[in-house]
């Protein structure tokens, strides 16, 4: 039996991998829903404003990533907080990650179930997705991070398919009017929150710092990632305004996919099926990264960081995750009102974590530094 090395830290990755990871984490599930929640054309400015805030946040995060504590990885955290505190924070992080991937997986699952396999028992889809993710994750953190390149190449070009929607007769300029907010309601605030939480994702880089090369100019790559996600959001939102008009947009739950349904190629009429399948790459990537994070976090909580990761432990993580998904899917997600509740929690949580994590870490590092000096 060869040694089972999930967390092999021998090779470090360039900042370009951070670019791929951050961009894809920002384009995870929530962007499917985004136009439905934004509705009004003036929300274009909302996306731009949130992009600027997100950029500021990224600056903070990068400052921390370049600090001495970040370079030491786990040991850095221990120095910063002390073992007991680290375990507590890891526990909180574990729960946050668990909620995030549950919502994302079940969200994607709903898309697959609605568009591709309406008559299939949805638990089977969970099973197949998790099986794939477990396989990817079992190849170790190193390979999973490498996998992001494939994921990016598989999914990125889909954005270009939306260009036909910018051409008349589907598009008419008056679909974008009015461009200034005429009535500002609580829904508009919710829209802003949704944009903000869609931008969240870069904060999970702190789970991956042992694998990213220190002394990298991270801020450059993260800025590019942020800018790319922004342009994708804008493109999709404006395209869906052209396609549906802002009156009908709220009626369609997954406008992004319904737009793809309208495109037809002579070869494949159901283009949406192919594209949804390609989007699964992102899902599998996210699940496998987070699965490894969960396993790592459990080891920290159980004080087993010094021992080798075991196959058994990993398998148990996978199975627990599967059970968690199935339980939530059958008892919570399938009830219509509850689903919005879980999704709302996720939107709030990821908004909060994205806001707090970089500031909190940087502040603490500065304080520690001052105490030492």
């Amino acid at each position: 039996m060869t040694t089972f090395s999930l967390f092999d830290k021998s090779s470090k990755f360039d900042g370009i991998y951070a670019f791929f990871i951050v961009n894809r984490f920002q384009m995870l599930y929530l962007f499917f829903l985004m136009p439905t929640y934004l509705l009004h054309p003036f929300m274009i400015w909302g996306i731009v404003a949130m992009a600027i805030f997100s950029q500021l946040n990224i600056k903070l995060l990068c400052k921390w990533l370049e600090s001495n504590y970040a370079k030491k990885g786990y040991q850095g955290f221990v120095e910063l907080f002390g073992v007991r505190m680290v375990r507590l924070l890891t526990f909180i992080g574990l729960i946050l990650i668990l909620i995030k991937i549950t919502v994302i997986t079940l969200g994607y699952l709903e898309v697959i179930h609605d568009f591709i396999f309406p008559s299939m028992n949805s638990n089977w889809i969970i099973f197949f997705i998790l099986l794939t993710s477990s396989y990817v994750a079992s190849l170790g953190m190193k390979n999973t991070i490498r996998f992001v390149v494939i994921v990016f190449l598989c999914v990125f070009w889909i954005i270009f398919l939306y260009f036909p929607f910018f051409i008349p007769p589907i598009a008419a300029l008056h679909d974008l009017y009015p461009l200034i907010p005429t009535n500002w309601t609580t829904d508009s605030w919710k829209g802003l929150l949704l944009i903000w939480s869609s931008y969240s994702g870069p904060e999970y880089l702190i789970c991956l710092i042992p694998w990213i090369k220190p002394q990298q100019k991270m801020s450059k790559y993260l800025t590019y990632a942020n800018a790319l996600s922004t342009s994708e959001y804008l493109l999709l939102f404006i395209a869906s305004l052209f396609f549906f008009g802002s009156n009908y947009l709220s009626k369609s739950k997954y406008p992004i996919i319904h737009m793809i349904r309208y495109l037809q190629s002579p070869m494949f009429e159901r283009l949406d099926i192919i594209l949804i399948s390609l989007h699964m790459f992102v899902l599998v990537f996210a699940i496998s990264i987070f699965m490894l994070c969960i396993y790592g976090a459990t080891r920290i909580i159980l004080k087993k960081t010094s021992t080798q990761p075991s196959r058994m432990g990993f398998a148990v993580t996978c199975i627990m995750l599967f059970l968690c998904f199935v339980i939530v899917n059958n008892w919570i997600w399938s009830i219509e009102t509850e689903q919005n509740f879980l999704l709302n929690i996720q939107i709030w949580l990821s908004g909060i974590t994205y806001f707090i994590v970089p500031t909190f870490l940087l502040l603490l590092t500065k304080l520690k530094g001052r105490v030492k000096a």
Partner: protein
Amino acid sequence: MRRKKMLLVWGIFVSLVMIPGCAPFVENNTIEDIAPVTFWSISKGEKGKIKMSTLVPPLVNEPKSLLTLDVDLLKQGGKDFNLRYYRELKVGQLRLFLIHEELAKQGIFQLINTLLTDYDVSQRMYLVIVKGNFDEYINRQAKKQENLDYYLYRMLKHYERKKQGEMTIVNLHEYKNKLFSPFSDPVLPVFTVAKDNFTYEGTAFFSNDKLIETVTSTEDQIFQLLDNDHYLKFFPIPKLDVVIGRLRSRVNVDLDKNLSLVTINVKLNGRIEEYQGNKNILNGNELMQLQKEIETELEMKTTDLIKKMQELKVDPLQIGTHTLSPFSKPISEKVWLAAWGKMKIKVNYQLYFEALQNTKNNY
């Protein structure tokens, strides 16, 4: 030890499979067992029911037969067709949805909603209003003509907007978008069935989801120029003994601030295709005269058409969208329709054309 582990893994696997249920695939899509449907035709049945029919089998070398049913609900019809036919009918290839005029006058909102919620139905499916007995026509014609349903679809596809036809062709998505937006009313093409003919008749105007008026011949052609295609291959004006062809229009709509006057400027480019009147069209002056006459004629007809829309309180030309601007609050649909009803109209035509070539004048 090894064995125990293997057993454990198998145990987990089997229980994992058992938890969610059994075989993952429920629907059987073996190609030999299914028959895709190309059209559904809907008309008013007896006692408030809908009469629904479709032609089976499509694109297979078997004699075709028309299935007809009386149902309460659209999807119920989809189900009941299966009970009548040995293959399972699938709606994934539904290309045409023909609605009888009588039914359309009552409103088709529910039907449209049903079609929109079905992910198997393409948003590009054409909607068509039919006058006359379509079932009879299909029954008679299907024996003479193979793949009739497919050819009907090809015909609509040929005249679709980008291919610059002369018909109003509307698909589900376009219809829905106009139906649900406050400043425009949907239109649909009307086809008449008479004996062995299936002819395009004109454009039907809808107020909300109800058909209220059909415009035909000249009025329909003006509608094509103003809003639908902005192109006509032939535009015969029998009153002036002239056919203008390759007409391309540029329409400029100008609304005044307090919504009391709408000015519509239309620039037309084309050429005379045929002339049987007694002017010498090779002579510049007389050509100008003819041009003026045509302009006046078009202005009059267009004003009449728009007045008709105003009386019916419909806005298929989407003039209401011109009230929108980037920096002001949009007015409500009610305010717009009230203003539209009373608005004054000014129509200006500017015609540029080349005269007939290779001709010897009579005079």
